């Protein structure tokens, strides 16, 4: 991009990708980002490399000539290191990836987004083709008072990811404009 010396006018936005271990957070980011997935740590990465327990992975999605969307996947463990604050401040919303066979792994992320009142969607990672019925049962069993949309998402599939993100932003828009989404 050439800005010809004039003051550049780029805008960036971000979405937080969360969920339990091995639910496909990195794959989710990789499948749609137009950069390699990168990571940073809140602390010096000496000795452990940058991809340690406390690193935040992220990728960039160029939406327009002047508009970038970043997907951040902070470490699952919320330590005293502020990564979560850094990625939550000003985020459009969150995606909670949930493996229907291991739903409890993602309940922390759901609870956290509820707690900080961040709009989110639950993306069911159903590799085995489990449907929405099972998902609803799972979420009910978890007692998630879910006004959050629930979508099916194979994190290897760009189309699913795109639809997941669209659902999230639409949901965030509705929340933002003060119109509550009817309970599902």
């Amino acid at each position, binding site marked *: 991009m050439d800005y010809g010396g004039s003051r550049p006018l780029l805008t960036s936005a971000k979405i937080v990708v969360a969920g339990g271990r091995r639910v496909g957070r990195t794959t989710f980011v990789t499948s749609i980002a137009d950069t390699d997935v990168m990571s940073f740590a809140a602390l010096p990465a000496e000795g452990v490399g940058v991809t340690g327990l406390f690193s935040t992975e992220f990728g960039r999605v160029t939406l327009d000539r002047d508009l970038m*969307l970043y997907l951040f996947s902070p470490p699952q463990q919320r330590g005293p290191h502020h990564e979560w604050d*850094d990625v939550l401040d000003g985020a459009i919303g969150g995606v909670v990836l949930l493996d229907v066979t291991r739903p409890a792994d993602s309940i922390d992320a759901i609870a956290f987004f509820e707690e900080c009142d961040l709009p989110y969607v639950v993306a069911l990672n159903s590799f085995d083709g489990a449907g929405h019925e099972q998902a609803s049962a799972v979420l009910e069993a978890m007692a998630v008072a879910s006004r959050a949309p629930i979508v099916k998402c194979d994190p290897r599939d760009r189309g699913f990811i795109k639809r997941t993100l669209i659902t999230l932003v639409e949901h965030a828009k509705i929340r*933002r404009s003060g119109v509550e989404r009817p309970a599902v």
Partner: protein
Amino acid sequence: MSSGANRPGRGSAGEEPPAETSFAELLNGFSFDSVLRRERKPRTDDDAGRVQEEDVAARPPEDDFDPPGEESASIVRAYAWTGGRTKSEFALQVETMVSATSAYVAAAMQAEHHEVLELCQHPRSVAEVAALMRLPLGVAKVLLGDMAGRGLIDVHETASGGTAPDLGLMERVLSGLRRL
């Protein structure tokens, strides 16, 4: 036109850095590598060692940190490196884009500045600079804030100033996603 055109340090390449106690000043004594490797070798660089120790004494109380023992040294180093500052006057979020201004050659004082400017010939987010330079996020923010203060980089706008993004921006993001 970038801001800060009249700031010190924008003149000739040989000019001294500003007299303020800054990140850049602290950085004079030691390179990125020496900082990153310090723990593995005996301390032979007296200057760098002294700066580090002075700064440890001067840094604010650890109200925010509850560091596990092994990480304490790293935190101390990060503080020393950034002059104890953890905040920048610029609103730098992880997704904030920065790009090199055209005035960069004369005003870039440090090797690290040049490295950032090379990276930022194309706009990069704060997160990307941290990742590509293998810097802790807080250190990258202070470095970039320092460079923005010197007029070396432009800071672009984010969807929010730390609050919820506005509807117009969300609409643009939606349109962009639909076009993907």
